[in-house]
């Protein structure tokens, strides 16, 4: 910025030239204020979503810039919520992008005193082996003298916060494995 430009931009002078003699309005406006824009305008895309907290099912608009979520707010199109959100829904941005989220697989070995890190692929393989082994150990062809074709070796809890598609695959896979102890928050 040249000296002349600087001087011309000096609000003391603009007070007289811009019709704001008291210096409390237009003349005092800074360059940053002049160029201010909501971050939603910069979004590459707006993705339609649904609030993950309670079962009201409020519509959400998710603003994304350079593969990062920059803002989440109510979707005015939703006839259920009409663009409104409660404090939890309003905190969705912090929920999804906040520092409280873990991004690393952690492992605690039997009798271990602390976490260790583990890569996802190894963890998945270990879990698959555990499932197979526990399923076998807990296998019951019969129960109370009747054909049961099931395993009592492992159980699962959760689902009310999950998608229908996820619940469907959980129920499908675990039932096919013979597991029956499959439960969720509907009872908790």
């Amino acid at each position, binding site marked *: 910025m040249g000296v002349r430009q600087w001087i011309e931009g000096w*609000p003391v002078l603009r007070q007289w030239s*811009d*019709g*704001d003699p*008291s*210096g*409390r*309005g*237009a*003349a*005092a*406006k*800074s*360059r*940053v*204020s002049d160029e*201010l*824009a*909501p*971050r*939603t*305008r910069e979004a590459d895309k707006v993705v339609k979503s649904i609030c993950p907290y309670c079962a009201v099912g409020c519509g959400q608009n998710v603003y994304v810039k350079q593969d990062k979520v920059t*803002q*989440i*707010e*109510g979707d005015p199109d939703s006839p259920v919520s009409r*663009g*409104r*959100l*409660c*404090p*939890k*829904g*309003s*905190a969705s*941005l*912090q929920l999804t992008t906040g520092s409280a989220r873990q991004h690393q697989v952690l492992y605690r070995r039997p009798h271990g005193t602390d976490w260790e890190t583990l890569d996802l692929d190894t963890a998945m393989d270990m879990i698959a082996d555990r499932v197979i082994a526990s399923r076998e150990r807990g296998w019951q062809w019969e129960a109370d003298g009747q054909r049961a074709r099931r395993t009592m070796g492992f159980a699962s809890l959760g689902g009310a916060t999950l998608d229908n598609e996820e619940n469907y695959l959980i129920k499908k896979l675990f039932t096919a494995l013979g597991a029956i102890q499959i439960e969720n928050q509907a009872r908790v």
Partner: protein
Amino acid sequence: MTTAREATDPAAESGYTDHPPRMGFFTDTTVCIGCKACEVACKEWNAVPADGLDLTGMSYDNTVGLGANTWRHVAFIEQRKPLAAQDPGLHHDTDVLAMAEHGSATQPPEAGMTPTTPGSGDDFRWLMASDVCKHCTHAACLDVCPTGSLFRTEFGTVVVQEDICNGCGYCIPACPYGVIDQRPDDGRAWKCTLCYDRLGEGMEPACAKACPTDSIQFGPLDELRERAQQRVRQLHEAGVGEARLYGDDPDDGVGGDGAFFLLLDEPEVYGFPPDPVVTTRDLPSMWRHVGAAAATLLAGAAAAFLGAGKGR
């Protein structure tokens, strides 16, 4: 009769020609459910820092009041007053000064029940109200700001410019409502901007958008005032005689608020000043007295020498 009021046009007086209508908030506390969505939505949008974990015991209010990190604040008042229709009479003809002698209020440790209204029997009600910067027509914070960081926008709102503020702190005690405050680790003063960035894009402020019951309504101030009058009439007809507006009057000490309220009790019950006045209303008088005092000093000094005679 409501629209005929002559209101000042702060944007026009601040050098904006051809500006948009003055925008503001009407907060109807009678439909507030105290959910605090406004507080969170405001923080998310404006990236306002969290304010610490402190269980205050002030009913469900754990944010206490407006400040640098709280631009929307929901007050909770538990009262032994009937849920509903009230005797409309006010009884302020007693000696408030004498009462003040007894101390002003109950401190939080004793305030599980706000002792504002002793009441009787089983009556009980729970008032909730979302407070915010008033964006005064005559804004003290803006008047006293020495740097021009605080300025009047084309929407008639009052905004701190964070690239300018030098943290002198003058605006903070100037505000008659206790809105603006300094963020200690940052040094600058912060408050509600009425989402200035969103307004420019035709979006409504984050808090008003989130509000589940439309307790916070955003729009051109003229329309809001009209709507608010209607609402008060409706409530009076329904027997809620205590409903009253606060901050809507262009003739009040701050020239009317850009964010005004519908209350069910006296303003101070919610933590509002009952009759706020912009401090700079008295500034001409202050300057006069300063001038006179300076002159007195000059005269006094002259007299001191005259009385002492010539030195050696």
